[in-house]
């Protein structure tokens, strides 16, 4: 089987995210770039399926972004992925989630696939759009926010659990399909030292605009995107915490009164 995993290179979760003084962009000074958290579950899921079937299946990771994404591709190779594809072109600058999907769908179509996996959302823009849009462009079914998955022995379908409000839905889906991963699906493995050394020597395939048949510069990047971020705004500051003093019984009385009379939330 051919597993294709779509991954994104993003600021790590510890990063302090600050708008620049003009609030038009994010200050990327000192940011550590990593594989988006939910994409790690996708890589691990693909590796586990490959290991389960032991039938010569391959895992190909694909990432769209500037040169910094190469490090994430190498990490995925070090974890055990077989091939990596770096998709970038200066013309892609300003691409939004749906436009990214249009580009990635072309790339994935030319690679061939049985199952496409991704994280439920990139932890930078939290759009949760790209993988579903790739499924639409390829004309295949999708199941998102997957917390559990089982592939049938004949490799034609998957039974997945997906997280919804109030519980999990059981979903039956035929391959080929797109699946996005939620926390709890698995525990992503660490790259081993031999894996890291091998990954350093692996060739990373490059794909640019000219490799995408049928898409011109007006179809990609800012020109091809229907949304644009025009600015950033920090969260509102809280006015400060009022500590409630006294004996526990007293504190409870005062807090309940404050929530009822002052904050008026109960």
């Amino acid at each position, binding site marked *: 089987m051919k597993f294709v995993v779509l991954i994104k290179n993003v600021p790590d979760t510890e990063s302090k995210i600050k708008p620049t003084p003009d609030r038009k962009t994010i200050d990327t000074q000192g940011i550590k770039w990593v594989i988006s*958290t939910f994409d790690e579950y996708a890589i691990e899921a693909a590796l586990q399926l490959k290991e389960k079937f032991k039938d010569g299946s391959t895992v190909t990771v694909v990432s769209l972004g500037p040169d910094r994404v190469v490090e994430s591709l190498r990490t995925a190779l070090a974890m055990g992925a077989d091939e990596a594809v770096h998709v970038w072109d200066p013309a892609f600058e300003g691409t939004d989630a749906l436009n990214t999907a249009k580009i990635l769908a072309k790339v994935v179509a030319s690679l061939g696939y049985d199952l496409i996996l991704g994280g439920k959302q990139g932890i930078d823009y939290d759009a949760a759009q790209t993988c579903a849009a790739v499924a639409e462009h390829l004309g295949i079914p999708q199941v998102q926010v997957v917390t559990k998955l089982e592939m049938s022995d004949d490799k034609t379908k998957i039974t997945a659990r997906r997280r919804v409000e109030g519980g999990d839905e059981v979903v039956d889906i035929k391959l080929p399909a797109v699946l996005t991963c939620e926390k709890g699906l698995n525990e992503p493995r660490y790259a081993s030292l031999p894996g890291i050394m091998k990954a350093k020597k692996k060739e990373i395939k490059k794909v640019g605009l000219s490799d995408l048949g049928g898409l011109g510069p007006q179809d990609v990047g800012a020109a091809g995107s229907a949304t644009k971020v025009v600015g*950033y705004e920090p969260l509102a500051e809280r006015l400060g915490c009022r500590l409630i003093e006294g004996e526990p019984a007293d504190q409870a009385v005062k807090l309940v009164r404050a929530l009822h009379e002052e904050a008026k939330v109960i």
Partner: protein
Amino acid sequence: MTHDVLVFAEIRDGQLKKITAEVVTAAAKIAGKSGGAVDLAILGNALDKAVDEAASLPVRNVFVVKSPVLEKYSTEGFASGLEAVIRKADPCVVLFGATAMGKDLSARVAARVGAALMTDCVDVDFENGALKAKRPVYSGKVYAHVVSTNQGIKMASIRPNIYPPADKGGNRAALEDVALPIAGDAIHGMVREMEGSGAGKKDVTEAEIIVAGGRSLKSAENFKILEDLADVIGGSVGASRAAVDAGYAPHSKQIGQTGKVVNPKLYIACGVSGAIQHLVGMRTSKVIVAVNKDPNAPIFQSADYGIVGDMFEIVPLLTTEFKKLLNG
């Protein structure tokens, strides 16, 4: 393309979910600026009760796509049905709730019709023919202001608990049936059934009041003291990642960066240290209360009210006091 706003109505167990009425409020704001009307699209099979509810909302038309094929949710089935409504109604804006279903469907349909799409918006507006939205990014550390730049349809999904629900009653919208184009055998992925760990209980993302616990609960059984408080004040119980990782609560209750994002009017954090990864999941709560033994816990910097104390002592006392307040 008209100036109208179409709202995807979300149903659970044959009833409209609360988010639908909230999205109608957002839609009314947009329609006021775009100069159009608000319509609803409702899809499913056992729909009569939900259609009645929908028609009582302040909307013009309710487009009904009824088919046995839509008895259970499938992305392909619902995308086909909603696309058919969009082609008929020809709206300039389509709004969804930013729920599991709304996020799944909106991305598919936006890609299909070439629309602009903004996910999980906390504010939407319409100006100079463009849809504008404010939405949390970087796991809620900052807001992004996004605008549509296309001439076609603009779509957005609205975060729950942001807009007040529109009033039901006092209206009787016109009903219009729309046929479902897709055949059942063309659908290759479908929901079979629901497994409710908290079936019937409100999901934390829908809760107005949340009582959350951290690893200091020390056991799953101890979560009962939070449940007792939540029951009295009509809240739901949430958990920090540390509590979930330690096995004291299921992941479905986890609040934070790799859990759920919530926006209740009251968030009571008990024994939660307040790491940034947790804060990004609840920071927009209207009122935050922290109860923690450690006076230096970061949570106090994000709280409005705080008690430095042992939650095993404080929480039951709060339960008693709230009982007095609400029953007395």
